[in-house]
């Protein structure tokens, strides 16, 4: 454990340096509602720091580390509210490719993903949403893809890993941007980023673009989605931790009725309840990472447990932080709103709390709960 802890501490320290030097809330505000919604120079810095390759094996130019290290980085990174799509590209997309079976394609793409030259996105959800990666309406037939994908983030990627149903079961194709038949529309998200609504009209694909098919494709998709889901929990933990810190600080200094509002017992107890939710989020994520390091088999179950708690806690801390701030919390100029909005986005992304509660119930027989 100790070596692991040292590793994680170094990674966290690197993010702290990054936070002080390469990003700021002003930058985050600046990028809202812009295209592509993040800064390519900062993305380059992130890649140079190695974070895009944390979960890519060394043989493909990555660091070959695991979920625990990625979680440490993402938790700290999320505190900065940086809009750069680290989890979506370095986990969700990269891991889907890695878990697939096309060695040539991996060799072609993964080093570029690790180095930040290629920005991939996984286009797996159909327009109705939902978190079952095998509920596929998009079709792969006759060398072309037809259908629609939604909630694709980053919307402006260099290429999209598109899942589809073929005659031989699920398939996953790498489709570069600009491919004929592929169009991207945009939907804006609460935090000022945008996700893509992709339409595929007979977009041509060849076997060299086939990242995975059949059972391998199904397993690769499920595992990558679960890993990113777990990591979204880490991001939510970062966001809620920082939101709570800001709120507590506000409670210490804001004076009403001649006293700091943090001295009023009703508000104190409210803050404690938020703290408890944050601690539960931390605890379940920690437990998940410990267990999965020893036995990766329970990934889906742990991902749902983590995403459920972190989504609910993140939303609650976000909302109540606004309330505790009073009128100022309702203004755009107060930073706390940015944290709530990011919590909203992360909470809805990859299945919200209710969705993962349902999945947990389906995955875990009641007897196993205790």
């Amino acid at each position, binding site marked *: 454990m100790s070596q692991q802890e040292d590793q994680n501490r170094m990674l966290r320290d690197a993010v702290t340096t990054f936070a002080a030097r390469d990003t700021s809330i002003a930058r985050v505000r600046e990028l809202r509602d812009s295209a592509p919604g993040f800064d390519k120079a900062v993305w380059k810095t992130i890649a140079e720091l190695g974070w895009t390759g944390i979960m890519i094996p060394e043989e493909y130019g990555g660091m070959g580390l695991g979920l625990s290290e990625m979680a440490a980085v993402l938790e700290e990174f999320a505190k900065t509210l940086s809009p750069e799509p680290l989890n979506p590209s370095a986990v969700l997309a990269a891991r889907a490719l890695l878990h697939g079976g096309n060695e040539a394609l991996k060799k072609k793409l993964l080093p570029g993903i690790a180095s930040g030259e290629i920005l991939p996105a996984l286009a797996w*959800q159909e327009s*109705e*949403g*939902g978190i079952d990666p095998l509920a596929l309406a998009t079709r792969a037939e006759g060398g072309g893809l037809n259908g629609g994908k*939604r*909630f694709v983030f980053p919307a402006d990627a260099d290429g999209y890993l598109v899942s589809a149903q073929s005659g031989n079961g699920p398939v996953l194709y790498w489709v570069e941007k600009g491919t004929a038949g592929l169009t991207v529309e945009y*939907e*804006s*998200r*609460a*935090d000022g980023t945008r*996700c893509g609504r992709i339409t595929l009209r007979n977009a041509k694909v060849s076997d060299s673009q086939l990242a995975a098919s059949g059972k391998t494709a199904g397993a690769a998709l499920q595992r990558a989605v679960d890993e990113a889901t777990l990591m979204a929990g880490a991001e939510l933990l970062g966001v809620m931790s920082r939101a709570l810190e800001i709120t507590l600080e506000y409670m210490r200094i804001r*004076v*009403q*009725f001649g006293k700091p509002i943090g001295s*009023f017992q*009703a*508000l104190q107890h409210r803050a404690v309840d938020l703290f408890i939710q944050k601690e539960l989020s931390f605890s379940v994520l920690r437990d998940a990472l410990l267990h999965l390091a020893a036995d990766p088999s329970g990934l889906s179950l742990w991902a749902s447990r983590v995403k459920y708690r972190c989504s609910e806690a993140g*939303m609650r801390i976000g*909302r109540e932080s*606004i*309330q505790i701030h*009073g*009128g100022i*919390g*309702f*203004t*755009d*100029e107060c930073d706390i*709103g940015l944290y709530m*909005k990011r919590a*909203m*986005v992360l*909470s*809805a*992304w990859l*299945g*919200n*709390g*209710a*969705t993962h509660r*349902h999945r947990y119930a389906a995955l875990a027989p009641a007897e196993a709960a205790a």
Partner: protein
Amino acid sequence: MQTRDWDKMADEAFRLEVRGFFQKQYPEHLRFPAYHLRWADTKDWYKKLVDKGWAAPGWPKEWGGMGLSPSKLLIFIEEQERHGVARTPDMGIILLGPLLIKFATEEQKKRFLPPTLRGEYIWCQGYSEPNAGSDLANLKTEAVLDGDEYVINGSKIWTSYAMDATHMFILVRTDKQAKKQEGISFLLVDMKTPGITIRPIRNLLGVEVFAQVFLDNVRTPAQWLVGKPNQGWTMAKALLGFERISIGSPKLAQTGLKRLEAIVQSQGLTRDPAFMDRYTQLRLDVADLASAYGRFADLLKRGETLGPDVSILKIVATETFQRLTELTLEAAGDAGALGGKVAFRKDSVDILSPFYNARPATIYGGSNEIQRNILAKNVLDLPG
């Protein structure tokens, strides 16, 4: 312009007449707006109200109002809410008018009421300050008499419609020695007076509804002070009659329920019994809020005064509305963080605007914490 003795009319007939007018005259595209409208959006509609003689339903007839009894006024408001008629910048009609009529001199009334009624004077309210939000008695903006003018210095915040307003009514400290709630006076100010700066404030929706107003040596005539000097706070508080019940109206929650219903249908959530059960809980909460509202409304209709227990309405209405918007986000699933009108299978719904608007609902108009403090002391008789 119609001037009729509304009180002689039966309640139901009156209700139908009001409803008919709204249905015929109110612009369809402005019904149930997802956020506060500005004067530019609503002034044509306001003109229609003026022409009809319905601009000030609560004012007495001698000042051009409809002279409605509390019972009829409540019906008028209920029909407004039912049809989704937006509020205009109506601070002058709803808050200032009744206060002037009760406390102002005859000259002040003549000077200010008619142009207010006609929509020539648009008023904003200067009560809250950066350090006196929940704690109004702490206000710091001061006015010093200099000859026949008051010189005002300070700043006001959360001033809705400040950008649209021609005038402002403002609470200022005129006696620094007095105890906190005392020493506060009620002044009127022309917004064109030199020394006034307006800083619009963007809210979570990204729109500018309210502003901070800075007052830097702003001079206003001494005869624009309403009522007695140093009695402004008492006066302003006394006028909160209808405000106290309308802030607890179930309409906001009922409208939210309709919005949620649209998503429920579009998302096929009727097939998710777990979700539907929580939806039913909220429906019951809204229904019972309406029952509680009806009970207080009946008191008003009978001409009785509302006790401090009416505060429960504000708490229930705003907190139920908040939970409703939260369940709406959840119902929207993956689309629960998308901005603007979001297309679902059957309808397009703005999910986030009501969610954001529900946040300050528990803060403004006396935060729910303050309401609970008041209930604990004044209704439950718990020690201080």
